[in-house]
C-alpha cells in the first residue's frame, strides 16, 4: 500500500480496475474519459487482457453484457452522451442480474453539451439508468485516491449483489493529478456458478435472460431483486463529513464539488460562520438516514452541484422539511469557486440573522 504514484484520475481508475483483476474492457472514444481507454489499450495486451474499441457505446455495453455473462469482471467507460446510449444495455444487465462496472466521467449537457466538468447526470444515474424497475450502485469519488478505492469496491459490491455499478466522476477528477497508492493484494473474484462457460455436458444449461412473459413471474423476479436492493441500502451506504461537529450551516455536495465546498467551509469559518460539509459517497444507495440525523443539528442546509439542481431532491427527501434547504449550482461545464460558495453560505447566515 505504501508506494505512491502521481497519476491522472482517469489513469488511476484504469490501473485500479486492472489490479482488481478486470481483464475485459470495451469502449468507444469520448472526451473527457479518453485516458481510461488509452490506458487500457496500452496495458491490456501486455497482461493477456482484452481492450476492444467497439463501433458504438451501444455495442460496447452489450459486449460487457456478454463478457459478464461469461463470468468475467468486465467494464466500460464513457461520458454523458455515451452513457445515454448505454442505458439500454444497463437495463438488460440489471435485469439479467449481472455485475459489471460502468464509468461515467460526466461532461456538460444536455445534448452534445460541452466537454467541461459537470454533474448533470445525477438523475440519470440514480433514477433512470435504463427503463424498468432497476437500480445501479452509484459511487461518487472526490479524489484520485477515491477513484482507485471505489473502483475496487464497485467491482466487489456489484458481484456480491449481482448488479451493475457505476463510478460517477466528472471531467475535473478525470484530468486531475494526485498521488495515489494501490492495495497490495485484491481478492480474486468469487466463483460464479451461474456463468455461461459451457455445460461440459456435466450440468444443465445455464440461462441468462430478462424475459418473463407471465406477469406474476416477472413481478416475483423484480420483487426478489428489490429485496437485494434493501440489503444494499442497509449495508452499502458510504458518506463522509467535514467539520460538522459544531456546524450551524451544512453544505451537502458530492464528487469534485465537495472538494471545492471543503475550501468554502474554511473560508466561511474564517468569516465567523460555522459551516460544515456532508458528502455522500454512494449516490445510490443514498445516505438518507445519515443525512437526516445530521440535519437535526443544523439550522440551514445548502446543496451545491454542478447542475441546475438534481441531488437536491434527495437532500430534501432526507431532510423531510425539518430544516430549510437551499440550492446553489453552476452548469454547462462551469466549476464554482470556493469564494463563490462561501458567499452563498455567509448569505444564508445573514438571512437567518
Amino acid at each position, binding site marked *: 500500500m505504501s508506494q505512491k504514484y502521481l497519476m491522472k484520475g482517469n489513469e488511476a481508475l484504469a490501473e485500479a480496475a486492472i489490479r482488481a483483476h478486470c481483464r475485459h474492457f470495451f469502449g468507444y472514444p469520448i472526451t473527457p474519459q479518453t485516458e481510461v481507454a488509452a490506458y487500457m489499450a496500452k496495458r491490456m495486451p501486455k497482461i493477456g487482457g482484452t481492450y476492444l474499441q467497439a463501433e458504438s457505446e451501444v455495442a460496447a455495453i452489450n459486449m460487457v*453484457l*456478454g463478457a459478464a455473462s*461469461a463470468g468475467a469482471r468486465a467494464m466500460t467507460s464513457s461520458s454523458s452522451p455515451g452513457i445515454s446510449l448505454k442505458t439500454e444495455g444497463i437495463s438488460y444487465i440489471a435485469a439479467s442480474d449481472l455485475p459489471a462496472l460502468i464509468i461515467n466521467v460526466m461532461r456538460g449537457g444536455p445534448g452534445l453539451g460541452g466537454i467541461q466538468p459537470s454533474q448533470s447526470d445525477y438523475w440519470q444515474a440514480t433514477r433512470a439508468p435504463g427503463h424498468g424497475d432497476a437500480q445501479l450502485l452509484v459511487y461518487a469519488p472526490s479524489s484520485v485516491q477515491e477513484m482507485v478505492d471505489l473502483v475496487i469496491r464497485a467491482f466487489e459490491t456489484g458481484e456480491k449483489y449481482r448488479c451493475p455499478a457505476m463510478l460517477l466522476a466528472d471531467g475535473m477528477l478525470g484530468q486531475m493529478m494526485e498521488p495515489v497508492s494501490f492495495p497490495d493484494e485484491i481478492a480474486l473474484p468469487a466463483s460464479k456458478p451461474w456463468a455461461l462457460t*459451457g*455445460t461440459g455436458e456435466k450440468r444443465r444449461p445455464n440461462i*441468462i435472460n430478462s424475459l418473463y412473459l407471465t406477469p406474476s413471474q416477472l413481478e416475483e423476479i423484480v420483487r426478489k431483486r428489490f429485496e437485494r436492493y434493501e440489503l444494499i441500502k442497509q449495508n452499502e451506504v458510504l458518506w463522509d463529513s467535514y467539520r460538522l461537529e459544531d456546524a450551524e450551516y451544512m453544505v451537502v455536495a458530492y464528487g469534485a464539488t465537495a472538494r471545492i465546498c471543503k475550501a468554502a467551509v474554511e473560508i466561511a469559518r474564517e468569516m465567523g460562520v460555522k459551516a460544515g460539509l456532508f458528502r455522500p459517497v454512494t449516490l445510490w444507495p443514498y445516505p438518507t438516514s445519515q443525512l437526516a440525523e445530521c440535519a437535526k443539528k443544523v439550522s440551514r442546509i445548502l446543496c451545491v452541484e454542478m447542475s441546475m439542481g438534481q441531488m437536491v431532491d434527495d437532500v430534501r427527501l432526507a431532510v423531510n422539511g425539518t430544516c430549510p434547504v437551499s440550492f446553489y449550482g453552476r452548469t454547462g461545464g462551469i466549476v464554482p469557486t470556493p469564494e463563490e460558495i462561501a458567499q452563498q453560505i455567509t448569505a444564508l447566515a445573514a438571512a437567518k440573522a
Partner: protein
Amino acid sequence: MAVIFQKTKGLTDCETHYCPGCTHGIVHRLVAECLEELGVLGKTVGVCPVGCAVMAYDYFNCDMVEAPHGRAPAVATGIKRVQPGNVVFTYQGDGDLAAIGTAETIHAATRGENITVIFINNAIYGMTGGQMAPTTLPGQVTQTTPYGRDTGYSGFPVKVCELLQNVDGVAFAERTAVNTVAHIRQAKAAIKKAFTCQLEGRGFSIVEVLSTCPTNWGMTPVEALGWVEEKMIPYYPLGNFADRDVHRKPEGENV
C-alpha cells in the same frame, strides 16, 4: 430393437412455441444436430435475439443468453473474448440482424469475430405481428406496407450475404433455404461448415436461411414453402458468398 432415429441431444424436451408450419423449428434442429455431431455441445454458448426466437434459450441444450434487440453479435463478441475456446453462436431474425442490429452485425464481421451467426430471413417481422422487415420484398404486402412495399418510398430490401461478401473479416457466408428436403440438406451442410470454420479459428461465419412465416404471410404452411421457391429465391439467390481464412496475417503486420 435397433434405434433408427432419435431426437438430437442438442435440443431440450421443451415444446416450442412456434406456429404450425413455421420453419424456425427446422433450423433449430439443424443447428442442434450440427453442434451434437461436431461434439461441441458442452462447450457452446448461444445468444438469442429479440424476435420469434427470443425463447430459444429454452430449446437449445447448451448455455444460453438473451441479448437486447439487434445486439446479439456484440454480446457474442463479449463472450468469445472471454472464452475463445468455446463455440459461440447467435440466432437472429432479419429485423434483429439487418435493421436495428446492422451496426453490430457489420462490425462483428469487420473484426473477423470468430463467431457463427445463424440468420433467419423470413422477409417479415414475425413476433410483432407482420410488419415490414429490411428484407421484405418489393411489392410485398405487410401490416405496415398495406399497399405493397414501394421501393421508391420505403427503400430496397437488404441483401445480407451480398453485403457481407465484401467485408474482409467474413470467413464464411452462405445463403440457404429450408423449403425442400434438398435445400434442408444443403442448409445443414452450410451450418456445419460455419461451425467448423469457427473451430478452425478462421473468422466470422454466417449462414442465411430463407425461412417461412405462414402466420404473417397469410398462407398455409405448404403455400409458404412455395412462396420461398417462387418469390424469395429469385431475389435472394442461394449459394456460397465467402469461404476463406481471414486470420492469416498479411505480411509485415506486427501482432
